[in-house]
């Protein structure tokens, strides 16, 4: 507790002398009165003691003394006031006691007292260690200085607090996960700058703007990309390689006439097609993509798929029109292949587009620690080579889905840079063929009706196609840039059997109702190596027709020779989005007209525009 007291040190400060007191007794009036009289003559001054006890402080400090003025007694009429004691003291009683420490004073001396107190205060302040001041108006000056100091102090404190608060807020934002706005950081933080000198859009070094980021990130539009796939082709066969393929022994007998769908492969410049990809997440449950192949003859839908993203237990369903996943080659688009064309086996057994049909796929990724992926697909059944359907007389009309197949893909977990996947698949579907004088067979010798390849079907087969496939791929991802050192080894085998029944024949003696079984197969093996950054070289060996037999309805069976092809390719990818490829192939084909050797050369140039999604393994 602080007690304030003022020690008035004046030379006139002493207790009234005993003589002055004694003189009181002379008077006859009441002692107080006498005393008062006496006090007029005597220079009595009050002893006022107002000071301050401060811990650890001998002399009162200036600020502590400031309120002392409050304790200087103010003139009050008719009241005796002892500053020290703070209570009224009846002077009569005191005088009667003769107590020498009584402080007698009169109202008229109050003013003087106050002045004396002030003088004393000033004197003491002058002797105090806190300041040396001119005695002229010291308190006012003191007060004003103190006011000034107080104001400055408050101002400085406010400024510092504000600054600290701002900085702390900024660091809070940075350190605790909210993004500071660039405007707010412009004042103190050095502008975020790009220090690269080698050009590019940020070389000018402007401050970071959030708007650009937002615009790039926020768009509900689908991802759009375009693939342009063009190539120059030349081969040395007389009627073109496509004709050779159509005439391959054992393989080429399944079309009605010579008019059938082909993707044009002309000598000279070709545009395979322009692929337009659109893809997006539909909602929390599905994603979808559509791929349109636009070529000179028109546009067709390559894929239009809705795929689930929400099913539990590793299940996934997709529906629409899509490439079947039964083999790696079939599931890939033409621009993803490592060679300009697809392997012969796939081309001869399923056609130039592969197995691409409308249907539904259910797949299940099992809980095994390594990948075991089962798939079940149901397709409508419209494939020109394997699953044709006519539906009209003399065929049965089989409603869709007419093709059912299943596959499994197993991939053991290999260390870091290695990847390996095995695939097995099998399926069956309705197949109907109409032929135009291609299989004269033995019974034509006894024909009484002559017929020829006149473009009109004259015998019909109805039945099903069963197929089986297996493939394996191994990839090594070297830790060098731009694909240098990467190795991919891939191989696949396809086997197909057509179990057909001759349902009708123009010739009356034909063995209608008898079966015809065609069994063909083929395989390929390829390897691609990145020998330099951005450069790859590849080699592919193919053989078709190891099993190549036909059991005809009349009981005879034929067996045909195999055909082989060796292809070599070299490609250069200036970036991930463009590729140039040179491919040379030599094939030995067993056609109906004998063996034929054909050389093919292709130069392919592909690009992709837009946000093309990443490719699967």
């Amino acid at each position, binding site marked *: 507790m602080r007690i304030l007291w003022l020690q008035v040190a004046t030379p006139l400060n002493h207790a009234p002398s005993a003589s002055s007191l004694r003189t009181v007794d002379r008077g006859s009036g009441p002692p107080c009165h006498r005393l008062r009289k006496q006090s007029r003559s005597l220079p009595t001054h009050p002893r006022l003691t107002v000071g301050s006890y401060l811990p650890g402080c001998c002399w009162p400090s200036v600020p502590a003394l400031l309120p002392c003025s409050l304790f200087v007694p103010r003139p009050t009429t008719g009241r005796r006031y002892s500053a020290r004691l703070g209570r009224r003291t009846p002077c009569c009683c005191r005088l009667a006691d003769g107590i020498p420490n009584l402080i007698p004073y009169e109202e008229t001396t109050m003013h003087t007292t106050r002045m004396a107190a002030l003088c004393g205060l000033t004197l003491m302040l002058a002797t105090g260690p806190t300041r040396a001041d001119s005695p002229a108006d010291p308190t006012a000056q003191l007060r004003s200085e103190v006011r000034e100091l107080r104001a400055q102090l408050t101002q400085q404190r406010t400024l510092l607090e504000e600054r600290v608060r701002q900085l702390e807020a900024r660091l809070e934002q940075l350190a605790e996960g909210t993004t500071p706005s660039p405007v707010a950081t412009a004042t103190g933080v050095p502008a975020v700058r790009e220090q690269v000198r080698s050009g590019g859009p940020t070389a000018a070094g402007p401050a970071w703007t959030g708007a650009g980021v937002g615009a790039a990130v926020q768009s509900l539009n689908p991802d759009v990309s375009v693939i342009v796939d063009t190539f120059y082709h030349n081969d040395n066969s007389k009627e073109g390689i496509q004709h050779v393929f159509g005439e391959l022994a054992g393989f080429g007998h399944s079309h009605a006439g010579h008019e059938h769908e082909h993707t044009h492969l002309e000598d000279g410049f070709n545009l395979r097609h322009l692929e337009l990809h659109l893809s997006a997440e539909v909602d929390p449950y599905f994603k979808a993509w559509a791929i349109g192949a636009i070529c000179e003859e028109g546009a067709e839908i390559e894929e239009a798929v809705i795929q689930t993203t929400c099913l539990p237990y590793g299940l996934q369903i997709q529906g629409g029109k899509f490439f079947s996943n039964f083999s790696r080659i079939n599931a890939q688009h033409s621009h993803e292949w490592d060679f300009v064309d697809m392997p012969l086996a796939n081309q001869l057994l399923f056609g130039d587009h592969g197995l691409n049909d409308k249907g539904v796929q259910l797949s299940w990724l099992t809980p095994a620690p390594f*990948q075991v992926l089962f798939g079940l697909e149901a397709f409508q059944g419209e494939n020109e080579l394997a699953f044709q359907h006519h539906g009209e007389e003399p065929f049965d009309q089989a409603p869709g889905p007419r093709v059912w197949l299943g596959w499994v893909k197993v991939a053991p977990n290999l260390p870091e840079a290695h990847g390996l996947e095995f695939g097995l698949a099998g399926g069956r579907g309705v197949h109907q063929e109409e032929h135009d004088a291609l299989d004269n067979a033995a019974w034509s010798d006894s024909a009484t009706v002559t017929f020829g390849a006149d473009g009109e079907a004259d015998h019909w087969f109805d039945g099903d196609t069963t197929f089986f496939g297996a493939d394996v791929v191994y990839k090594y991802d070297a830790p060098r840039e731009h694909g240098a050192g990467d190795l991919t080894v891939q191989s696949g085998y396809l086997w197909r059997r057509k179990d057909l029944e001759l349902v009708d024949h123009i010739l009356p003696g034909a063995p209608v109702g008898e079966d015809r079984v065609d069994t063909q197969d083929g395989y390929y093996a390829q390897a691609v190596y990145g020998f330099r950054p951005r450069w790859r070289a590849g080699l592919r060996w193919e053989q078709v027709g190891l099993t190549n037999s036909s059991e005809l309805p009349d009981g005879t069976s034929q067996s045909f020779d195999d055909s082989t092809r060796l292809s070599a390719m070299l490609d250069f990818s200036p970036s991930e989005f463009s590729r140039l490829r040179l491919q040379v192939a030599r094939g030995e084909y067993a056609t109906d007209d004998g063996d034929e050797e054909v050389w093919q050369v292709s130069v392919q140039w592909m690009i992709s525009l837009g946000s093309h999604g990443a490719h699967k393994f």
Partner: protein
Amino acid sequence: MDTRHNHSAGRLAMFLASGICAFATVAAAKPLRIVTTTSDLASIAQAVAGDAGTVTSIATGRQDPHFLQAKPSYIMRARRAQLWIRAGMELEIGWGTPILDGARNPKIREGARGHLDASGDIVRLGVPTQRVTRAMGDVHPSGNPHYWLDPLNGRIVAQTMCGRLCELAPAQGDVFRANLASFIAELDCRMFGRELVAQVDGKHLWTLLLGGTLDADLTARGLSGEVGGWYGTLRPHRGKQIVTYHRSWNYFTDRFGLEIAAELEPKPGIPPSASHLVAVMKTVKRENVKVLLVEPFYSRRSADLVARKTGAKVVVCANSVGGQEGTEDYLSMLDQVVKHLAEGL
């Protein structure tokens, strides 16, 4: 006899009950399965999750993170993940989505709580202010994605991860927060030096550094001599120039006051060409560049050629955890970078 039998039955029941309780506790406290795309994120996630999480990374730090195959083994890891943390800013655009699609794990698809983009709150560099096209090379429209090389971003990423982990496993919130605090304390110590951090709070030091007044403030306080750590080691080299292979070191140089004089790639993603290397050599001689900083998975041919012709030194430094000997975690990876640079400069 009867009482003994009762006792043993009671004991058996208690044993079973305690066993079940223990099992339940253990089962309830199974570690969170976290899969990250890069090894740096994995290191920070492991530091924050501690024993309450098992963390694996798709990229190992030994490969260029831009180019990876979406292998079946990666897909299987994502299948079982409870939290998928990606670096974002289109670093994984070549392989992230096929892994997520193939994984058939709805919990970690983009937008779910189990999918975290670690770049959400970091300080970005290199955000293009003009329209980007692929003619500029492999330019990322959201900014330069190699942000973990700035220790401040490492601090921010740890905070982000802690927040998401606490959301996914609130029961272990205290563990995560305690781990986060110790990771941040260690990061601050390595950044500024243990002596300085003991005297001035790490957060305050970062505030001063961001405000640009750290040196002045420390000098005023007389603590200038106490500065250590990465900041202290690289302080004498402020303003010096280096040459990098790819545009991957900008966050580091920006934080520590270095400058990048040139890149060996003429444009991001395009390998060095002879004419560009000639221009780089001129720059190196003119700016007196002493260090050519190359990651281990890039070819050293171009860097060695420039070094031979100009006298600069090739410093092979991993920019990702696991890319080199001695980079087992995020902080030691940065230690390594600072050490190599300080030796070379």
